């Protein structure tokens, strides 16, 4: 158990540091209050606002563990949001939700097909849907912002379960489901093996193709759910802006969570922590009164630091520097 704890330590410390900075710029940061059966407060805001990226990261972490990447998740969010918003008022939640999630599933299948069956490099394969997907979403909404009032769909964005905002509850639920599937079965080990050395894994008898297909499908499904939540939150679907650039936040969350872009070892929980770190930075900058443009610079700096820490060449250079000083 000790190595596990040690492994997550830098991320946890980073989160605590950022929360402490948030507290410094906004003294009421940790205040919580109950209103209409739902918790409110800046801390809850971080969780709630972070939910879409956390969901994306949940799918993305598995994709990255197989040494892949999915750039299309933002576009998939836009598609599923557009579908859910268009169908909710006329057909009710079950049909709207099924159609939206079904679309995410199909998007994942498409990505998985390109990567696992046709052998296209993941970054290029998913770039296709990243570009095309937003077009599809705009076709669905016919270029307008589609609004809806169906209360059960709105609840997914604004409701609460035992005081916990619905998006947060959904993320928790998905984390538990994903964790149970991945760590409860042998999937986790086989994914880590495939990401660590795909050729060796195939020669060990692992059906690497089916598994890679499956992680892209799961990633698409998570993205669709994130899209529905984002739409429910604003009671409408904006095909131009829903999920825009969020794929980068999701990748960043996964990388901050210690999963290498070279595949192999992954941690679902730490990817969630990564998503929280990003959102805590976002919220902190908003609360501090600095213009939100700063956010992008701060994020970029964090990416740089994280990637430097993961770079073997950097580590070597550091070690050599250390030796030289001695």
């Amino acid at each position: 158990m000790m190595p596990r704890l040690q492994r997550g330590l830098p991320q946890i410390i980073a989160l605590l540091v950022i929360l402490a900075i948030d507290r410094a710029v906004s003294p009421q940061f940790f205040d919580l209050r109950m209103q209409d059966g739902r918790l409110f407060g800046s801390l809850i805001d971080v969780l709630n606002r972070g939910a879409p990226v956390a969901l994306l990261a949940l799918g993305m972490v598995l994709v990255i563990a197989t040494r892949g990447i999915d750039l299309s998740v933002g576009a998939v969010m836009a598609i599923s949001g557009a579908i859910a918003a268009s169908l909710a008022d006329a057909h009710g939640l079950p049909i709207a939700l099924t159609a939206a999630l079904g679309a995410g599933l199909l998007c994942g299948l498409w990505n998985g097909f390109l990567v696992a069956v046709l052998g296209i490099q993941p970054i290029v394969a998913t770039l296709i849907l990243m570009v095309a997907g937003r077009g599809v979403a705009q076709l669905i909404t016919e270029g307008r912002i589609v609004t809806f009032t169906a209360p059960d769909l709105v609840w997914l964005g604004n409701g609460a379960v035992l005081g916990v905002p619905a998006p947060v509850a959904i993320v928790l639920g998905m984390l538990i489901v994903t964790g149970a599937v991945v760590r409860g079965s042998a999937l986790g080990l086989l994914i880590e093996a495939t990401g660590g050395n795909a050729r060796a894994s195939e020669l060990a008898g692992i059906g690497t193709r089916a598994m890679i297909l499956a992680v892209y499908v799961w990633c698409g499904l998570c993205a669709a759910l994130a899209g529905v939540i984002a739409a429910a939150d604003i009671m409408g679907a904006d095909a131009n802006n829903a999920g825009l650039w969020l794929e980068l936040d999701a990748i960043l969350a996964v990388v901050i969570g210690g999963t290498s872009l070279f595949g192999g070892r992954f941690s679902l929980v730490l990817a969630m922590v990564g998503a929280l770190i990003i959102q805590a930075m976002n919220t902190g900058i908003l609360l501090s009164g600095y213009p939100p443009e700063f956010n992008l610079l701060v994020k970029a700096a964090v990416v740089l630091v994280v990637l430097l820490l993961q770079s073997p060449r950097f580590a070597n250079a550091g070690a050599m520097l250390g030796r030289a000083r001695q």
Partner: protein
Amino acid sequence: MPGVRVDANVGGSDAGMNASSDPGSALLEVRGLSKSFGTLRALQEVDFTLRAGEIHALLGENGAGKSTLIKAVTGVFPRDAGIVRLGGAEVAPRSAKAAVDAGIATVYQEVNLLQNLSVAQNLYLGRQPTRFGLVREAEMRRSAAALLAEFDLHIDVAEPLGSYSVAVQHITAIARAVDQSARVLILDEPTASLDRHEVEILFAVMRKLAQRGIGVIFVTHFLDQVYEICDRITVLRNGRLIGERATAELPRIELIRMMLGRELAETTSERAAAQVRQAGEVCASFADYGKAGYVAPFNLSLRRGEVVGLAGLLGSGRTETARLVFGAERADSGSASVEGKPVRLQSPRDAVAHGFGYCPEERKTEGVIADLTVRENIVLALQAKRGLARPLSRSEQDEIAMRFIRLLDIRPPEPERPIGLLSGGNQQKVLLARWLATSPRLLVLDEPTRGIDVGAHAEIIRLIRELCDDGLALLVISSELDEIVTYSDRVIVLRDRSHIDELEGKAIDVSNILAAIAAAGTAGAEAGQA
């Protein structure tokens, strides 16, 4: 006056001819070259002499030091000791580019040119003819066409290089090298991916270069080609110089002996310990199994409790046979059956489901998963065989890992250590454990003792024998002939990607295997007397 001019010209060209094509003069001299990587001594005081105008074969099995020698000479990496003289003057290039500037050019098997640029652009990349800073395309094309015409290659030099065959690409690379005033040309396995006709074209180019007085070093493992074109042969083994001979004075069997390092005298009764094992019934068989351009169709039956050895030179089709048997490559002819029932082996997954296991030669890239622990590496194949839905519990994994760590004496005995931190021999044992955990009926071991220290080496061989006594069928590939002789019940000899002979029982000894390797093809008569 005109007469004088003519005389002067004739005299000048004569002098040039004498200087460049005198067969006795050493063009490239390597003396006492050594190179180590960590504790591995890749080259130990190797001497090598290349004369002007000769084609000189550099031969040796995997790990003999051929590539290291080339790279140390051409400055790809620094040498630890030794000197290199080119035309009498000492040279010490510090990069491949510096070597080219000094007059030593190398063309590798994978052509290092740009597929998307035209042939002409590739020929003159970085030294294009320019006027006022602009590239003179037309002039570049004219001289490119003229340059290639010297090699009897008449192609449209404006087309992208990638649209031409590998042979043309090789000749383009050679032409580029020669045009940059190369005096020594090193060709590293240039014919590996060429067909017979393309080889002819390349050989014609090589002969032409030799006539011009260029020294050509030819690295290959096709011995027929060596005898066809090379004037002299240098053999390396385990980083040491074994000898330099004139091709005409070196019989093929002698050459193979130099490469594999065996003397006929010492091979007589090594198989004294050979136990007469009672081979069980056939557990897997392959009929006319093969793949076009990969390995010729072969028949192979594997019996329980039997070790079948695959012997042959590098590139003879040993690993290819293993990969077909394991489904890592798909056969396009013939049929396979397991326990008498026909089966299809489309992927390693199929093979594992039928109880096969495979320890590949490339342990690092195809065997171990370096980031994962010893435990995870051991249970991997068993888990893949059981499927996702039936995960091994952590306690089952621990039990299996500890059982095999103890059984195979894997050190250090720590199941949670990442396998990348173990020594080569222990990594190999973990891979053996990975397959033994699946209770296989057939295990294919490709060079199971490669890169393993002497102690672990003996241990692996002992394990192979024990496994066999337990009723497992084993198919083992090894370049170490005495090793094959020690444990095999049958030996299949391969050459040029086909199975050419099979030795059984008392017939298995090193000299018979050597004779079989040398016997095939053009050297039939010669080997008959051996």
